[in-house]
């Protein structure tokens, strides 16, 4: 039996900068519907929640927060803080990733980044940036991860 055959694309060495990727964001990828038979992976109907809390649009102002930027509260919630801010501040008394905040608060990632941008501006939280591949060139980091995995 022979497996189906993929044809490699022309290798492109240069990665487009992240900004460029951002701009071609949601919906612009209209033509990519052919890759799977079941295109419904993970999809759930839940319209318009994105707009409930912040009024933000998907392309709007956001701090450059990664899914795994670690957030740590550096102050108690101010008495006048809206409930979602207080909840957020309570959650990240110990460091917590933006992804975890999104999961525990049951809010979309984009909404959490808007909330966090406000809290960062007010200096109520601190952000610890992730270590990303491009800035890496650091074998000792990779070795540390391997060592950690070996302990599992």
């Amino acid at each position, binding site marked *: 039996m*022979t*497996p*189906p055959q*993929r*044809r490699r*694309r022309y290798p*492109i*060495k240069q*990665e487009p900068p992240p900004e460029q*990727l951002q701009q*071609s964001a*949601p*919906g612009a990828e209209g033509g*990519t519907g*052919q*890759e*799977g038979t*079941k*295109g419904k*992976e993970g999809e*759930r*109907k*839940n*319209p318009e*929640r*994105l707009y409930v*809390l912040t009024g933000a649009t998907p392309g709007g102002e956001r701090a450059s927060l990664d*899914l*795994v930027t*670690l957030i*740590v509260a550096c102050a108690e919630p101010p008495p006048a803080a809206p409930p*979602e801010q207080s*909840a957020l501040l*309570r*959650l990240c008394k*110990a*460091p*917590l*990733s933006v*992804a975890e905040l*999104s*999961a*525990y608060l049951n809010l979309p*990632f984009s909404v959490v980044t808007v909330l966090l941008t406000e809290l960062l501006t007010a200096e109520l939280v601190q952000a*610890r*940036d*992730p*270590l*990303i*591949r491009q800035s*890496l060139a*650091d*074998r000792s980091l*990779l070795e*540390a*991860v*391997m060592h*950690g*995995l070996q302990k*599992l």
Partner: protein
Amino acid sequence: MDFKSSDTITGPRTEDRLPHSTQAAVKIVIVGGFGVGKTTMVGSVSEIRPLTTEETMTQAGIGVDDNYGSDSKTATTVAMDFGRISITDQLVLYLFGTPGQERFWFLWSGLFEGALGAVVLIDTRRLEVSFDVIGRLEERGVPFVIAVNSFPDAPRYPIEDLRSALDLAPEIPIVECDARRRASSRDTLMTLMRFLHSLELTKASV
């Protein structure tokens, strides 16, 4: 109002809190088609109960815009599972199980660009669903390894036949795994890490 009252929010369990000393996180993406075992793999190696982050995607007027002037947008919620492994008391690794369709990847900026690398999970009963993912990762220069999730009734091809069918460069590792088993999932992640390490060595020796 959709937001839960803050009293009802369940945060991390005490044992799921990261130490204050945690300085930074790294991430690895596990990507593949529907039902290939992404959630299973995240769950089998994660030290926390796997969590889900959602994002809303709005697509303006797909296909025929038959409803001009009223609501011609459709909103879809896309979910992504993730888990976590503490590496040291300063470093933590996150694993994201990401749908194979590229149009979802834009929802989480930096998902692939910032990742150390990716594990492409494949199911030999539906090899073609992985073709697009592999092409996209190549285009973006995201280093990846292939993990064949061994479903009992799936055809078994020799690794080199798979390599040639997937048109993969000889250095890209292809391993078999059972995503349900922690040791097997861990070994798959180790394969990716060793591959990334070898890429750094190659870079350093040029």
